[in-house]
């Protein structure tokens, strides 16, 4: 027993007991939400938002932390969803295994996508991956075999909770997806603090230097794609389970622009950024739901303003203020340990990362 917490603690060196406590309290509050909320529309929106959050965590990992401009993430998400959905539809496999299979499909697709991007740089990577997404969407739209249902989407699938009533299914999904969000956040946080994460950021910020220090772009890019693809696949599988269907409308420019906005506004490349960005935009979207049409204009203005005036998103903003506040605290708490002031924030272009 004494060994596990310490090992766990070393994976998150900047997490103090206090921070663990706060995170724990937040998770408990989040877990209690379905008990308080009796409105099924609110539950539907919350579950949908959490599923999107899993996708955003996966995308943030490859885009923000590994710095690979992968714009094919929605296709990987869709493939995971279709994979899981087709298994639920045509086999008697446990839907929970189908969920995992969705993750595996996502990981495999991502690895296959990683290979051709290896020699590409920046914007070329984004085009190639974007083209990949277009092809996937095209193939699904044109699928005449009936496997995917083309533009009409999959026929109704079982989902994870079979014949449960809408209210109890909503709650079961909420807790399931919340658990996935917590695990995904822990996984991404652990990985980005590990030597793998350091190598990835090294490749992101100084590719030539990192490569010279023996960091293999091939190996690390594959690992980054695989992990991110697995999470995206799980997100897709959760989508198809919860909605009992999936259609090619989950891909395309509009959903992509909303996801990018969420990441950028929260703070790309940080651990908490996707959570904050997704939550914030979900609230904005929900508030605007009765004004359809104005929504995307407002999102566009949001996006523009944040990128121009708040580089690093909300998390970046907070971390800058925290530095000031920590000075204020330090005046008071002269005996406090300086390690407290560490951030979970990696500001863009930070030079603190060196390659081990």
């Amino acid at each position, binding site marked *: 027993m004494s060994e596990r917490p310490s090992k766990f603690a070393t994976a998150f060196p900047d997490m103090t007991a206090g921070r663990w406590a706060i995170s724990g309290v937040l998770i408990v509050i989040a877990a209690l939400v379905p008990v308080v909320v009796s409105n099924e529309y609110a539950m539907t929106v919350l579950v949908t938002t959490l599923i999107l959050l899993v996708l955003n965590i996966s995308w943030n990992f490859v885009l923000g932390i590994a710095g690979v*401009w992968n714009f094919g993430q929605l296709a990987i998400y869709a493939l995971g969803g279709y994979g899981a959905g087709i298994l639920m539809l045509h086999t008697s496999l446990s839907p929970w295994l189908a969920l995992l299979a969705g993750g595996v499909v996502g990981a495999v697709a991502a690895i296959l996508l990683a290979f*051709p991007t290896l*020699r*590409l*740089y*920046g*914007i*070329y990577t*984004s*085009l*190639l991956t*974007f*083209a*990949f997404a*277009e*092809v996937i969407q*095209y*193939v699904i739209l*044109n699928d005449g075999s009936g496997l995917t249902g083309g533009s009409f989407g999959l026929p109704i699938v079982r989902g994870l909770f079979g014949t449960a009533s809408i209210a109890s299914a909503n709650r079961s999904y909420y807790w399931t997806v919340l658990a996935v969000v917590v695990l995904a956040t822990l996984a991404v946080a652990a990985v980005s603090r590990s030597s793998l994460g350091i190598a990835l950021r090294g490749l*992101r*910020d100084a590719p030539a230097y990192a490569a010279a220090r023996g960091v293999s772009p091939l190996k690390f890019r594959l690992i980054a794609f695989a992990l991110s693809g697995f999470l995206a696949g799980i997100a897709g599988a959760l989508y198809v389970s919860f909605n009992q269907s999936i259609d090619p409308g989950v891909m395309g*420019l509009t959903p992509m*622009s909303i996801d*990018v*906005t969420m990441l*950028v506004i929260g703070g790309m490349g940080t651990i908490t950024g996707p959570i904050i960005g997704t939550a914030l935009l979900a609230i904005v979207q929900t508030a605007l739901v009765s004004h359809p*049409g*104005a929504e*995307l*204009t407002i*999102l*566009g*203005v949001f*996006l*523009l303003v944040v*990128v*121009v*005036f708040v*580089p690093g998103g909300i998390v970046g903003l907070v971390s800058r203020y925290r530095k000031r506040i920590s000075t204020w605290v330090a005046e008071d708490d002269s005996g406090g340990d300086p390690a407290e002031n560490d951030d979970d924030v990696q500001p*863009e*272009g930070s030079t603190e990362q060196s390659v081990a």
Partner: protein
Amino acid sequence: MSLSDIVGILVTTVILGSIYGLVAIGMTLIYGTLRILDMSQGSMVMVGSFIGWGILVVAGWNPIIAIVLAFVATFGLGTLTQLVSVQPLMKRMNSIDFEMVTFITTFAVAMILSNVALEVLGPQQRNVTPVISGGINVYHGVNLPYQSLTMAIVSVVMMAGLGIFLARTRWGMAIRAVAQDLDAARLMGVPVSKLYPLTMGLASALAGVAGVFLGGLYFAYPSAGDLPLLEALIVVIFGGLGSLPGTVYAAYAIGLIQAIAEVIVGETWSLPILYGVILLVLIFRPYGLLGKPSEARL
């Protein structure tokens, strides 16, 4: 393959290639000069289409007025876009994420433009009267509409005009100078803080004029810019970012690939085939047909 297939392929190539060239050269100009991929170019096509509709259909005026007005309006809009979405970020020009953040901000401008158009003008697609109607029967069954022919000619004229502007004029040379060595250009007295907005205005104006013509083919509606944007992206990256000759070759090469795919294999698979070819090109030539890793541009 019959002779009419071949003629059909050639005609389709000319039409598609000219469209692609017209929507892509502005993007190349911007990438070459500012090192950004301007995602608002598609919206400029949309704005141009709506201006074409307003002038040709609603007001019933001369096509020349539509073209001039589209040029002027999108020039202004492009300049404004640069001032709002790129200029404030110029101090980050040498940072690693400059391409990414400008990609996102110009994308945000595109989102705003097309959704404002949706709010103001409504979702309906509107027909833009062809600048010229009718067509020639090129060969048994293969028809070349005058509209497409005009578009091809305008496209070639505009590409050539841009080439001459860049090669011969003071400001054209200044644009190339900035693209090739920013510091040296500033030492020559080139006012980059004015030149950048003007370059983006010029590029947007080209897209706006393209919009007047494309409106007759694709119609004017709020998301009319999505497809041209996608096509322009494919063309500029296939041709090599920032290379003007590369863009022109790529436009017609892609037109040819698509025409062959459409006539031989059928509409269904022409886009996937196109993407497949591009995928292969990028794997073997990571910087496109004529692109270079970084230094040489325009």
